[in-house]
């Protein structure tokens, strides 16, 4: 599976840089960044990415609500969403899944294996016929 374009929704500029470098090092062609959920909802239409990597705790619009809105819009519904968050309380993953995400990755993450972890989630979803 090849990821052409990924939309990273993350409010921390350092983490944005880290994810971008990590994914591009592993062969992702383009990484687009949005600073929060509101920006994501605008950027997604222009970018039409193969995947959205979504933080949860963000200003203006949090990741859960952003995901719900993406899944509620017929134009963006099919784009796979994976959460990447420092929220590790029990139940967070369940809320994420209910919001429509395919998977949940936690921070701190290993940038050397981030791409591989994303592929595992996507391949599992594909095998189950979810994407």
């Amino acid at each position, binding site marked *: 599976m090849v990821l052409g374009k990924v939309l990273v929704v993350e409010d*921390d500029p*350092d*983490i944005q840089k*880290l994810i971008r*470098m*990590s994914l591009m*090092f592993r062969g992702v062609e383009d990484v687009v960044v949005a600073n929060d959920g509101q920006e994501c909802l605008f950027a997604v239409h222009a970018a039409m990415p193969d995947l959205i990597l979504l933080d949860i*705790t963000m200003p203006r619009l949090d990741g859960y609500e952003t995901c719900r809105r993406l899944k509620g819009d017929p134009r963006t519904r099919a784009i796979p969403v994976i959460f990447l968050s*420092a*929220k590790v*309380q*029990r139940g967070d993953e369940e809320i994420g899944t209910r919001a429509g995400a395919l998977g949940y990755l936690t*921070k*701190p*993450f*290993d*940038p*050397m294996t981030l791409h591989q972890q994303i592929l595992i989630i996507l391949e599992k979803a594909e095998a189950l016929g979810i994407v």
Partner: protein
Amino acid sequence: MIPGLPEIILDSLTSGVLAVDLEDRILFLNAPLSQYLMVDRQVWTGKPAADLFNSFGSQLSAKGKLAYRRDPLREGGRTRTRELEWKDGGRVMHLREDSGPMRDDSGKVMGRLYAYHDLSWEKTIDQMKSEFISIASHELRTPMTSIKGSVDLILGGCTGEINDEARELLGVAHSACDRMIRLINDILDLSKIEAGQIKLKLAVFQLSDAVDYSLRSLKTIAEQDGISFKVESSHSVLCVEADRDRIEQVVTNLVFNAIKFSPANGEITVSLSADDKWVTCSVSDHGSGIKEEDLDRIFGKFQQLGAPQRGGGTGLGLAITHALVTEHRGKIWVESQPGAGSRFIFRLPKAVAPPVEQEP
């Protein structure tokens, strides 16, 4: 002497005071306590204290109700301290009850004296402290992610070849980041447990299954120094009703601790047993043991007692372990002999129902 001075003094205290005779009848109720309970103390003097508290029965938490099942005769000469929760409308109030025997001039016990202190402020401060720790720990994770991630990328070759010295120094930074992240996770975990913010997902399971899982996860680490595990079980059915993930965390912490203090090629024994009420698990090592004077603080926070043979910890592992066992209404303690090793023992209430079979 000013007439009625003792009563004036008792009424001037900020704490509540209650005195009962050997039959638990109220001898005296000071003004702050009667105001706190909103009762007329004259009416209640001479009446059973149990009736006074029973009239508030619905407002007392289960913990509080239990505390008021008391018997001055049976309590005898013992002093006791316990915490109560009191619901006043929507507000939960916390009280500390200190009690001890009341003796006459000849030293004979003639009743019991109770003092009640409002702990609401302490609880509020405690809650604020927990919230602060939780937010601070969460905020610390993000920069740690950036630092560790950047080091990972450089070590992984993302920025090109690096020389051996740079690799070694980045390795130091990498392991320091790992340690910091473990510490943040432990602080966050403990603050949640202490604040009562963890919800136990209770299910009935075999404690031996949790032990097997923990030992499997630590096998590689133990084998690096030739340390082996031995499991002894005196019963085939050892069911507990508990949060399996959390109990695995308890066993893992204890075994990991034993590994740290075991000599190379040592053996760690995990024993399981049960009686009518409890399922007990013990983890024994042949390490350096714990000095008697240190036994009391071994489960405290940031207590790294003794010199581990390998690895280090955050100093919070045993505090978390203790808090988790207590949260399960269990008990944990340690027996140790300096030079001969330590044995950590915990017990959990035995489950009434058999475990639900899990689908493979």
